[in-house]
């Protein structure tokens, strides 16, 4: 049963957001949006960011990510690239081209590890590009650095 609960948390965004919204009011934590279509990755990132002391928002695809950016204006976005419908590049482009959200840092976290993919990532305005499989320690270090 525990397994199913865990999955529900990362699969059904609404529930997760509702859960987090309730705590937002009391704290002034920095906001981190994590976007990926793999539940396992989301689970991992959620754990890492929570432990690092950030407020975490979870998006399962690009469209959802854009909605969440508009709603919460996060300080940092960890973005996967290959996702259904709207991909990571487009999400990044949206963030960096909209004045209200331009301040948000963007870290691409992708299995696409080719030179061209990385170059394109920076071209659309990413602040950092980390290929999968990534080191959790490096990621946390990088996020802390960027939000310091």
């Amino acid at each position: 049963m525990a397994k199913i609960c865990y999955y529900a948390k990362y699969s059904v965004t609404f529930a997760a957001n509702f859960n987090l919204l309730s705590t937002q009011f009391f704290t002034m934590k920095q906001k981190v949006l994590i976007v990926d279509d793999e539940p396992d990755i989301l689970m991992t990132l959620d754990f890492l960011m929570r432990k690092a002391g950030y407020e975490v928002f979870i998006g399962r695809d690009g469209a959802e990510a854009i909605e969440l950016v508009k709603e919460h204006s996060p300080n940092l976005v960890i973005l996967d690239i290959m996702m259904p419908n709207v991909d990571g590049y487009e999400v990044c482009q949206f963030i960096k081209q909209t004045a209200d959200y331009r301040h948000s840092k963007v870290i691409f976290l992708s299995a696409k590890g080719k030179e061209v993919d990385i170059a394109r990532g920076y071209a659309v305005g990413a602040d950092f590009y980390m290929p999968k499989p990534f080191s959790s320690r490096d990621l946390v270090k990088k996020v802390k650095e960027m939000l310091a």
Partner: protein
Amino acid sequence: MPWGFTFLLSVFYLLLLFGIAIIAERRANKKGSNISASAYSLSLAVYCTAWTFYGSIGRAANSGIEFLAIYIGPTLVAPLWWVIMRKIIRICRVQNITNIADFIAARYGKNATLGALVAIFMVLGIVPYISIQIKAITDSYYTLLQNNQKADTAYLLRGSVEGISLYFACLLAVFSLWFGTRTPQTTRHNVGMVMTIAFESIIKLVAFLVVGGYITYSVFDGFGDIFGQAQHYTAAKDMLLMSSSHAYFNWFILVLLSGMAVMFLPRQFQVAVVENTDEKHLDKAIWLFPLYLLLINIFVLPIALGGKLLLGSNINADNYMLSITLYKGNYWVAYLAYLGGFSAATGMIIVETIALSLMLSNNVLMPILVKSNRIPDHYLGGVALNMRRISILALFAISYLYYYVVANHYSLVSIGLISFAAAAQLAPIVIGGIFWKRGTQIGAFGGLLSGFGVWAYTLVLPTLVNAKLLPQTWLSDGIGGLSIFKPTALWGVSGIDSLEQAIFWSLFFNVFVYIGVSLVTRQKSIEHNQAELFVDIFKYSDIYESAVVWKGTATLRDIKDMLVNFLGQQKTEELLTKYAERYQIDWNENEQADSRSVAFAETQLASIVGSTSARIVVSSLIEEEHISVDEVVAMLQESQQLLISNQELKAQTEELFDVTEELQRINVKLKEKDIQKDEFLYTVTHELRTPLTSIRALSEILYDYDDIERDERRHFIATIIKEAERMTRLITQVLDLEKLESGAEKLQMSEVEIVDIIDDAIDVVQQLANEKKVALSVNIAPFLPLFMGDKDKLIQVLVNLLSNAVKFCPADNGLVNLTALVKEKMLEIVVIDNGTGIPKEYKERIFDKFYQAQMLNKSKPNGSGLGLAISKKIVDLHGGKIWVEDNAPQGAIFTLQIPIARLIVP
């Protein structure tokens, strides 16, 4: 009927021929030569003369079916025309040759003496043939008269048979003179003559068929009636059988003889070679001419038998056709028969005299005139014409004389065969000339002289003896009492008919001497040159004109003056202007003429005086240098080489081009393969990255953080295990596919029970289906046979198909069905689901490796993306196929077929 009517009919018929000739020529002048293949083929039927028309019946009546040999020979050689005649036609066209004497002279070193010899022999040999035409006309005319007069006047008329024949000889001579010598040029096709002959061929065939039909069906009651009646008549019965043991020898000789005569008789050469306007006409002639021979012989036996039955043996069988119709009192049919015979005779006479007169004037008289260095200063075309006129008159004179003295005593066929034998003497040197390069001039002389010598001795001499011109003892005891040299039984060989024996010996000596002497003598340079050209004509004909072998000095002015002498001012100007325009030269200059101009002049001359005389004229006027054999060959080969190397170069370029193209194609393919390999590698590593990411990150977390809740920790570890399994599966599948594709992994063939593999596959998938609450159903046709296959691999395929189906089914109300049946020696398994289905555009590529990953580029693949690729490979290795059905109402339908009749050996 008054005698004058028949004579007038004959004159009227000749006038009709004039008319046809004139109309045909006028049309040809307007529209250009337009001899059709049919007209050409019909003109060849000039082969059928009065001999065929009257003589065959006589021969049949006396010797039975032997008459047929004369027509079987040409029929048998007709297919060879494509080889022999086509070659001769091409040679004549290239070398401007206008008759067979010219042909032989040209082949054996352009030797005028040889040409003259052939011409004289031909005249002597063919004279008897012309004389029997006169005889046939006279006899038929006489037969008509005899039946129309009372007995006493018939007696009077008998005394004037010679008179009648003289009238006819003169009439025909005048006609031939007028018909044959209207224009001096001889290479231009004589359209009028060909059309006239074609017309005559139709007349004689129609006449023969009508008269034959009349006798067979009106006088008698059809073929059955005639042959039936003949059975009771011993003499007639013998006709239908081979009479004696040597009949086969006779047949052989006659078939051989006629096969050669049909090509080398001067008139046949004239119509078949000189008048040929298109080599392709031979195609039609090859079947139409034999057909004509068949038709014209259909009624020969019935008429011959009918004549014997009705009239007995007292009447000359040659005239049965007339005698029977007159006996029955049907004059109209009799006149038709007369007309048919008349047309057969006139056709032969027209063509034969034209051909022989050309030979006589071009090869005998003209060379003498030219060599005597007394070339008249005025127009020589007129001289050439006069020579031909003289030749024609001389021919008729000799023929009539021969008829008067000799032919009167013989039947048509026996005289005709003498001429055939004469024509056949040319066969060895002509056929040898175009297929054998070694034949020499001296060999040709030797063969010709010995052949004609034996011919004259064994065939002509006996007829002269019988005509009481020579002592009788020569025939009975041999000359000087030497019986071994008896003309009718040479070497004392008896028991074979003298005629056939004579033919055999003459040809035997001819061939023997020709080959023997050729082998021991050497060719002169010009002979060698001509031999090369004749034998390899198809190789040289294209380049001949551009590679004239000639070295010497002459000015253009000289050449022009020479041509004016022969062709006349007007004609010369006309020809030279055209040539000058084409090659940009001025004929009035005192400039050196190049070899092409000289050759052009010689060709033009040849059309008037024949190639031999033309050669003499040109070489007498122009200072010619001696050319060695080597030079000649070198000159010819140079042009030849140029042509060949050009072609070779072209072929090589094309080949190179092909190779380049092929290389480019391979390169593109290799590049594609390379890209595919790269993509595969990239996709594999990419697919590995995803599980690895989770494993790495989660392991680090577990290591780094101690304060993890128990549930969370367990979940992390479960995920690590799950992802590790996913990686393992992927790696296994990649290796599987690689092994199958490289052929490293072979199928493990064994007898497979279809139900077994389906059960095993269902077992594997059942768990998954249960979890997702998908209903799995199976239909298996009863009594499915065992078949050879790899059990494990096939289970793998089914598991893949079934698990895919379950995976894409909606949860809770999913349906998956598997059906197995045997159709046309194929095991067919169909897997149907009610899932999301496969978009049409992906159906083709869904079996590609990782295609799933590529098509859903922006999302994570559901599964390894290799399952279908592996399945397809396995099915391929079983010799089967797998595909997605087009028209699934919903969900997807996968069908796989595996042949079960075939034992697959991996």
